């Protein structure tokens, strides 16, 4: 009898659940459902501020670590000031996958960060920001990167990502290498030979994380395809032609370097954190990351002596370059139920003192003209190279969406020194480019 009672109870519970989902149906369609538990937890703050308490914005971001902490702190201050509730979520690695499922079902967060894809991937879901107050203050350096063909911008760029090769200053000094001489890949490879002979891994890639391999191509490909004005393939790429021979050449370089032992032994199985550890402790010289790697390495070893240099060119006739891109860029879902409140949040984050704090955590210059950021050691390098020409991230600008993964996986085959991997990589790249290219 007791058991039957238990079962009945369970059945009642099930009924209750179905009833509960009936209830949520009555809330506005665009408002993401919130469980009672979270609501209850927020009751305390809600009680004080009256009607604003009904506003619940969802905020999702790809950023992690120090950046996420700074962003969340700013958002908590915004909550305190306005009485709105902002559900902050930073899912880390799985962010892109989540966003893809959300786009697929047309159910996006009210406010989210676009990790370099505000135009190419997210613009059809975002509200243009051209008429918002902060738009006039967006720095000219970042404007072209976040503007689409019609001249619309979709995000608030908190900072600008200026990236070159990050390196360990002490390692290069001990090997007698002057970074200013490393203007071509040839000179760079010679330097690697010296470093390798000294028993240090010239370059470190944590290939288990796969995106770390894609970084290599993003760093190297511009110098093969677009930075040399005389031989630029930029127009071809945009028109849907992929020069496979050049890609083969680039892959061959990676293969040769791997064979020569210029990468760490565990290049296929190490991860990003081991890259950072190697950089911080001086067991490697170069990494293919933005300035965040410097900030991260400083956490591991506060005494690490780290620097940033422009990316070498592929020919003596060309100059080294830097990569410029979106970093933390925040947009509003065009179908949000809280358009006005979301704009308020963006304006709040655009305030000089708020924006500066987040940009500082990112180790980048701000994306707004009237904001100065204290960048410490990174600033000296940004100043040193402020005349160097910048190019966009290769895959975001010149390749169709979805090619990143192809670069990562074909790169791994090369790092494994599989026979035929160079030719395979080039033909797979070409094939995927043709499949994914949308005119």
């Amino acid at each position, binding site marked *: 009898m007791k*058991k*039957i009672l238990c*079962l009945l109870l*369970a*059945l009642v*519970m*099930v009924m209750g*659940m179905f009833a*509960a*989902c009936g209830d*949520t*149906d009555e*809330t506005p369609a665009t408002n*993401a*459902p*919130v*469980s009672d*538990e*979270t609501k209850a*937890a927020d009751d305390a703050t809600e009680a004080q501020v009256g009607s604003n308490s009904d506003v619940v914005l*969802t905020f*999702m971001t790809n950023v*992690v*670590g120090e950046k*996420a902490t700074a962003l969340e702190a700013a958002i908590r201050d915004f909550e305190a000031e306005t009485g709105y509730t902002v*559900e*902050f*979520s*930073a*899912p*880390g*690695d*799985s962010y892109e*996958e*989540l966003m893809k*499922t959300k786009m*697929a*079902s047309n*159910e996006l967060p009210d406010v989210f960060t676009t990790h370099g894809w505000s135009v190419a991937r997210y613009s059809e879901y975002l509200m243009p920001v051209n008429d918002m107050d902060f738009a006039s203050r967006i720095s000219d350096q970042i404007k072209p990167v976040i503007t689409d063909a019609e001249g619309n911008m979709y995000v608030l760029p908190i900072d600008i990502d200026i990236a070159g090769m990050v390196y360990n200053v002490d390692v290069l000094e001990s090997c007698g290498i002057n970074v200013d001489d490393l203007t071509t890949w040839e000179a760079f490879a010679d330097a690697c030979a010296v470093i390798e002979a000294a028993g240090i891994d010239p370059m470190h890639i944590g290939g288990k994380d796969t995106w770390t391999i894609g970084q290599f191509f993003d760093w190297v490909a511009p110098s093969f395809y677009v930075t040399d004005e005389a031989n630029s393939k930029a127009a071809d790429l945009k028109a849907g032609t992929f020069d496979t021979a050049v890609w083969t050449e680039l892959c061959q370089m990676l293969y040769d370097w791997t064979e020569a032992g210029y990468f760490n032994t565990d290049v296929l199985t190490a991860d*990003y*954190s081991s890259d*950072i*550890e190697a950089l911080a402790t001086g067991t490697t010289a170069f990494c293919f990351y933005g300035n965040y790697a410097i900030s*991260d390495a400083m*956490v*591991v070893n506060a005494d690490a002596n780290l620097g940033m240099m422009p990316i070498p060119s592929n020919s003596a006739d060309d100059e080294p370059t830097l990569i410029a891109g979106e970093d933390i860029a925040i947009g509003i879902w065009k179908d949000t139920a809280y358009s006005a409140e979301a704009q308020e949040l963006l304006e709040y984050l655009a305030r000089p003192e708020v924006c500066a704090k987040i940009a500082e955590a990112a180790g980048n210059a701000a994306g707004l003209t009237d904001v100065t950021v204290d960048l410490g050691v990174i600033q000296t390098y940004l100043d040193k190279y402020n005349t160097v020409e910048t190019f966009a991230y290769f895959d975001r600008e010149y390749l169709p969406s979805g090619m990143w993964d192809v670069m990562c996986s074909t790169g791994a085959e090369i790092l494994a020194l599989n026979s035929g991997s160079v030719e395979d990589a080039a033909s797979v790249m070409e094939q995927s480019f043709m499949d994914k290219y949308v005119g």
Partner: protein
Amino acid sequence: MKKKTQWWRLPIAILICVVFLSPLYILVSVAFRSPADLSSYWSLPSEFHIENFVSAISEGKILKSIANSAIITVGSVLILVVAGSLAAYPLARKKTRFNAGVNSFILGIMMVPPLSILVSLYSVLVDLKGINSYWGLILTLVTFELPLAIFLYTNFIKSLPKALDEAAAIDGCGPIRTFFQIILPQLMPVTASVVILTGVHCWNDYQFSLYIMQNSNLRTVPLAIASYFSQTTSNVNAAAAAALLAILPPVLAFLFLQKYFIKGMVDSAIK
């Protein structure tokens, strides 16, 4: 004679301990180690670095995620027991073609990698407003664990004598009454193993929770651990501490309820 047969057990026992305990030992060793301590994971940490646990609890929100996992696991298991035993009864009792079809269909579902239908499943949940809700995840987990529950219940009910049902039928009981009054009370042992097996799966689920529980307040244990591992690039030790805290509830539950665990399995697996 007795003594002679004993000695060879010792090396085997030691080998078993080494193989099955060393992963746990490594986890404990990493979790208590200071990030600055670079000695081998096999050696004892030079000091017990409790800060790892402090940051795991404060940054990783491990305790909140344990509570979420508990709600989800209990909810799922309750529904699983009801829906699973109900569906198993006709399956075990009737030998029709239709039932044979249902049976292989259920086995099939048990083997489907859930990812193959993930996105369409996700949009169904969006339409039902089930994203970021306990019930959304619970019903999804129940669906994909249900075949296992049905499988176990069917096997068990088959072993119950049919005479029970027949006697009930002669007394004028309909199948519904027969099930609730005659069959259900017999199902306790197998229910224990259904609860154990599916409960562990629900507690440990990663794939579904990842897509359904996006709000960080609703994170389950594996989600909290995964995001902690991907976020704290520079502090593996705190991540290990978080992982250690996360496996404690099921492991402790197992150690305390061991007797029932193994007995439940023994009583039900074979019949």
